[in-house]
């Protein structure tokens, strides 16, 4: 018997409800007002009164309005047809909603997340008498470029015997594909789709592994120096206008993963539109099909109700975990986790909880940690591996990283790509600060080599601050050359032109190749007799490398520039110091 209740208080998007019967925390209920059913979630239980956050505008709710409870937790539907969809934070398909309800998001309007009419070509992979447990594969359907496996629902905890399974053929989502029997003789139907509560991590795997393999983003600065591993986590904090969203968009296009889930959480709607209009036109180089076919967009922009913003990141990560269960590599990009944290803060304020720093709730850190911990590389029970990588942007107030959300995030992520206002003002993109940022993962290039290059950058930085005091005149020629080397590394390797068709995405082979070329300059002792000469030489070299970066990999132009660069360097190179020579010999 489902419980019911009536509204006894309204405060912003929080309502207080008096209930009769049993309810559970995070249970979904509907507040019925003006003939509309408004989805809500129980966030606190106190005697026979519960507090619910309403995922809609609460205008018009009055004392005494009835509330219907569902006995279900806030859940998403998992099954074929998720790819290419655009959902709001509660998995409402937005394009369908637009068709039904017009331009505006009318409240109380919910549609099926997955089409119930579409037919899928099913191939069974179990037979009668087989033994299965949760998340085991009973068959598959093709979904875009992928084989979408039909899994035993994650909520079935026993060991089951397959009683019957449908033969190969076309079926709808609602059809029963198999019947399985538990040890007590109860029979459960397995359909193509099932529900899973968003706030519970999916743990149907054999073990979690340490993320080691780099997730290539085709951004040089990231892959070479600040790598992200498949199954790892990273964050991108930055002030407004520093290019967080652009960096996320580039990553969503070029990242070497199977599936990308974009969670636009509390940000501008206009940015999502760019992705929406652009992706169907772009091709995924791996599969040759539209990028949209490997993408899911969860779009809960800043003007949409704040409670569903809080839910949206969980919706996104649950979908990611679902595809991980099929042995796929999934990347979740959350933009921005600060808006999510602010949604928690708003709710916490309404609940009159004792506030922590900057009025964020005391559980901010553990909640952020819990979210990022849902990433990971896992070994499934049948030995395959799958991963969920999470990259979250953070929008710190005033661009100051010493604030609770940035700090709580930095504690739990494996890589930190801090964007700097100075770099973006100087139009140095990507504006990731190469010295402040860090990564704990292994990249595509030998660590000793990148360390060598890093040291040159550090030294160049020191020299630069010194030069500000003593002027160029007071700097020795040697130091000046070191400084120029650092500048060259920055301008020709760290910076990347995302508008250039070639330079926008650089394959790992090319990165390794070009990095070695850079190392030739960085390790060389150069025959430059004056600062003027050094400046001119480095300017010319920089221009050459920039042109080289802009020419197609292994094209004639590319080879031509390379020859020019090599002879240009050879011209002035005296020798390479021994340590560096040993390093260069390593491969």
């Amino acid at each position, binding site marked *: 018997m489902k419980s019911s209740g009536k*509204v*006894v*208080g*309204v*405060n912003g998007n929080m309502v*207080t409800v008096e209930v009769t019967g049993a309810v559970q925390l995070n249970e979904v209920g509907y507040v019925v*007002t003006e003939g509309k059913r408004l989805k809500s979630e129980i966030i606190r239980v106190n005697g026979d009164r519960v507090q619910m956050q309403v995922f809609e*505008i*609460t*205008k*018009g*709710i*009055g*004392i*005494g309005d009835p509330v219907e409870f569902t006995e279900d937790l806030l859940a998403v539907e998992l099954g074929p047809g998720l790819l290419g969809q*655009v959902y709001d934070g509660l998995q409402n398909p*937005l*394009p369908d*909603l*637009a068709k039904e*309800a*017009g*331009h*505006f*998001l*009318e409240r109380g309007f919910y549609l099926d997340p997955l089409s119930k009419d579409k037919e899928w070509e099913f191939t069974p992979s179990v037979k009668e008498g087989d033994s299965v447990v949760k998340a085991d594969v009973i068959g598959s359907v093709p979904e875009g470029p992928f084989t979408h496996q039909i899994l035993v629902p994650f909520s079935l905890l026993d060991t089951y015997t397959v009683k019957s399974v449908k033969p190969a053929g076309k079926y709808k989502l609602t059809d029963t594909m198999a019947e399985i029997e538990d040890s007590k003789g109860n029979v459960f139907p397995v359909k193509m789709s099932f529900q899973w509560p968003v706030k519970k991590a999916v743990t149907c795997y054999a073990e979690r592994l340490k993320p080691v393999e780099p997730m290539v983003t085709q951004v040089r600065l990231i892959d070479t120096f600040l790598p992200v591993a498949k199954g790892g986590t990273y964050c991108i904090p930055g*002030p*407004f*206008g520093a290019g967080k969203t652009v960096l996320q968009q580039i990553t969503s296009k070029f990242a070497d993963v199977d599936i990308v889930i974009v969670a636009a959480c*509390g940000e*501008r*709607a*206009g940015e*999502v*539109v*760019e992705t*929406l*209009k652009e992706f169907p036109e772009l091709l995924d180089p791996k599969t040759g099909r539209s990028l949209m076919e490997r993408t899911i967009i969860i*779009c809960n*922009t*800043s*003007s*949409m109700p*704040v409670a569903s913003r809080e839910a949206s990141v969980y919706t996104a990560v649950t979908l990611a975990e679902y595809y991980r269960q099929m042995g796929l590599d999934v990347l979740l990009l959350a933009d921005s986790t600060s*808006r999510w944290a*602010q*949604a928690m*803060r*708003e709710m916490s*304020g309404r609940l009159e909880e004792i*506030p922590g720093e*900057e*009025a*964020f709730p005391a559980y901010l850190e553990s909640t952020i940690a819990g979210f990022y911990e849902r990433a990971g590389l896992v070994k499934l029970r049948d030995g395959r591996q799958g991963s969920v990588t999470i990259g979250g942007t953070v*929008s710190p*107030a*005033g*661009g*100051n990283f010493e604030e609770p959300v940035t700090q709580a995030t930095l504690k739990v992520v494996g890589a930190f790509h801090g964007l700097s206002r100075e770099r973006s*003002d100087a139009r140095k993109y990507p504006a990731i600060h190469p010295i402040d940022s860090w990564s704990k993962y292994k990249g595509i290039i030998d660590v000793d080599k990148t360390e060598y290059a890093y040291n040159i950058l550090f030294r160049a930085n020191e020299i630069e601050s010194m030069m500000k005091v003593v002027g160029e005149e007071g700097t020795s020629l040697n130091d000046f050359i070191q400084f120029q080397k650092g500048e060259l590394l920055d301008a020709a390797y760290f910076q990347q032109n995302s508008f250039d068709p070639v330079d926008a995405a650089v394959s790992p082979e090319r990165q390794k190749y070009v990095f070695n070329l850079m190392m030739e300059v960085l390790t060389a002792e150069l025959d430059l007799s004056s600062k003027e000469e050094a400046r001119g030489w480095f300017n010319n070299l920089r221009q050459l490398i920039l042109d080289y970066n802009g020419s197609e990999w292994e094209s004639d132009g590319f080879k031509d520039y390379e020859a020019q660069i090599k002879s240009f360097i050879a011209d002035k190179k005296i020798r390479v110091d021994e340590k560096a020579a040993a390093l260069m010999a390593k491969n």
Partner: protein
Amino acid sequence: MRKVYSKIDSIVGNVITVKADGAKYGDLAEISTSFGDSLAEVIKLDDDNVSLQVFAGGRGISTGDEVRFLGHPMMVSFSDNLMGRIFNGSGEPRDNGPTLNENLITIGGPSFNPANRIIPKNMIRTGIPMIDLFNTLVESQKLPIFSASGEPYNELLARIAMQAEVDMIILGGMGLKYDDYLFFRDTLEEGGALSRTTMFIHTAADPVVECLMVPDISLAVAEKFALQGKKVLVLLTDMTNFADAMKEIAITQEQVPSNRGYPGDLYSQLASRYEKAVDIAGSGSITILGVTTMPGDDVTHPVPDNTGYITEGQYYLKNGRIEPFGSLSRLKQQVNDRTRDDHRALMDGMIKLYAAYKDSLEKQSMGFNMSDWDTKLLKYGARFEAEMMDLSVNTPLEKALDNGWSILAECFNREETGLKTSLIDQFWPKG
């Protein structure tokens, strides 16, 4: 017949509490006090305790005053009769025109479905070179003017209101000085733009609650006009006053403040207004130009900071000019490739040279020797500031581009400009 309640339990700031039943969240009520009637809005329900925010403020309310619930939320009349009219934050006439009651619409409606948005594609011409040429305003964009107090931001808004190529202007004034209100009214009247303008004005002397209503009323009306196919430009000045009004009310309601006293939902509140900017496929559009004054000229202050995360760029008003470096129109790339071939190149080229001029200026002020190049730059910078940046310059984009070329030609040789040879051949002034 609706019930009248005549026992007010508490009066705290602008918020009163009465015991009543049947009230809905967000509904309006009318309070009759000895100073006249005022509207109030339900902001909290707790059993039979109803908290109301009184538009006219809590002063002068007696515990024995009558409260009558109207049974509907805040509404505003929408029709073509709005054109040329001036109202206050409650939607009552401020001019001597009649009260409008027909075709009432609710304010603060639902948000636009992101799936139905389109990529903006039309430029809005303003006749101001620093906008048209360097940071083009795009239809459906939301842009604030970040400004220190004392800068001529209202003059700038009034000029844009008079010159912008739009069908309809809605001016939302929040916490305006009375003089500024008169300035807007007179300027638009003299400029002949009043007939296509509707104003919702809250002056600094009016009750603070009315200030909160101004953006919602303005945008609700704008939305209806846009759905009728009109290109609407909404001017909001000053959003910092709006945020301060929210702060004041949040604090009197004992909400936990987050940053410098502002409520924790400042971002969401600002975003839900700015996100009303939209280009409706096959219909009209809403473009929002707001003013955000920066207390202490500090861009990290919560109001400009949160605004910056929401809007699509910003114009920095400094020393009476739109600063080329901090200013940014994030959408300009969508339109400035279709205006004239030289637009983008000239925009980048002139700004780079102006940046070089700033360096030379610094060198000069430190007493270094000026090279020939420095002298050229100094000449260029002075002309750039006078003929491009000065707010009194009023010229269409094409003229501004031509003028840009003639400034370059008079200050530099062709190859010193760093522009593409093909463009120079085409546009360099002859003779």
